[in-house]
């Protein structure tokens, strides 16, 4: 069973497993309202192949730091630590989202940015999960890029 776009429930279930595995068994993610927060850290992975698009994870500063601290078990993570942790989180979410999509696809290495990343201009947001855990909010979005026919 593969799909054109993942559903909110799929993304929640994938991200939930990532969170309980690496952030803590008592740290599930729950859906939240569309709360605006200052995006301090973004991680993105691209999917290319029969389906093309991008999976993005966005977090405010304190959430990214807290997640890194739990994941790497260090009290005061450096900026490099946060960057690594956000990269691995989006890699795991993106990798599992990729497996839901139809066709043969490959996953890019993660890209991490301070602030927001801009999806390609022709990308359409096909799924948006506003989530919450004990340290605050995070947002996961999936963007699809329309495949144009090959012309010569």
């Amino acid at each position, binding site marked *: 069973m593969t799909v054109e776009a993942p559903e909110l429930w799929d993304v929640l279930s994938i991200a939930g497993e990532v969170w309980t595995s690496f952030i803590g068994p008592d740290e599930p993610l729950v859906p939240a309202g569309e709360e605006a927060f200052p995006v301090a850290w973004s991680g993105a992975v691209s999917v290319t192949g029969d389906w093309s698009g991008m999976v993005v994870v966005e977090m405010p500063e304190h959430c990214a730091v807290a997640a890194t601290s739990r994941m790497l078990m260090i009290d005061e993570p450096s900026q490099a630590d946060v960057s690594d942790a956000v990269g691995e989180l989006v890699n795991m979410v993106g990798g599992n989202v990729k497996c839901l999509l139809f066709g043969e696809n490959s996953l890019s290495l993660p890209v991490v940015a301070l602030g927001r990343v801009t999806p390609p201009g022709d990308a359409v947001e096909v799924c948006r999960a506003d989530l*919450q855990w004990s340290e605050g909010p995070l947002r996961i979005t999936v963007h699809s890029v329309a495949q144009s026919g090959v012309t010569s």
Partner: protein
Amino acid sequence: MTISASAFDYVSALALRETSVVYGPGKEYLAEARLLPLARAAGMADVDAYVARLQIDPAEQRKAIDALTINETSWFRDNAPYQTFTDVMLPSLIENRRHTQKIRIWSAACSSGQEAYSLAMLLDEHLPLGWTAEILATDVSTAMLERVESGRYGQVEMNRGLPAGLLVRHFTRVGTEWEIAPKLRNMVSTRHLNLAAPFPDLPQFDVVFLRNVLIYFEMDVKTDILTRVRRHIADDGFLLLGSSESSLDVERHWTRETAGRVQLHRPVVNHPRPVAVGA
């Protein structure tokens, strides 16, 4: 966060009363995350609405208690019992059951079904052509039985002890989950059963897996359960308890045999146990 303080108080008291699991302040997210799938399945708008229903619906309450209880189990748990199943129990039964060519197994307190399906995988591999096997999976939790029937497991559950070769042979990915092959699912049937109460009408089993559950009962209940299990196990059958439960005082109905690292319990019979002829 959408769970209200009053709903959380109710859930927290319920969990403490029924399972001794503490959902203290700060665990609102945890409670909500565990109940959300149930709320969704029950067609409720949110967890608060679901908690309101819990207060008047005992069946749903049962499910909620299961969801609030951390359930950790793995495929081929502890390995050694399954090795013994393949190396010792199955060859003996194949010899002794060659006229009926049928093997019956009981996975008692089956939880989410990993034990029953682990056995199904071994039977699929080792049972001679033309033989059939029936595995009865029982549990006190109907929510767990529903999970066994669905035969679906999340990614994190799949990683726990399941060899990758068996994963690709017996499971198909369905969305974010993995689903067991119909051939194996058909080997397993489920039934609601409380070990502490008198058993319903049960057949005779060749193998009973009763692992890591007796530890939760008082001594006299344990003894009573083992006495009643004896009535449903063939004279040449095998009973397997958890590794920490093998030292239980079970002399009256059972003898112990050691097979590698595993203690097997065999029924005590007043007449000689049937011996394989011509071996």
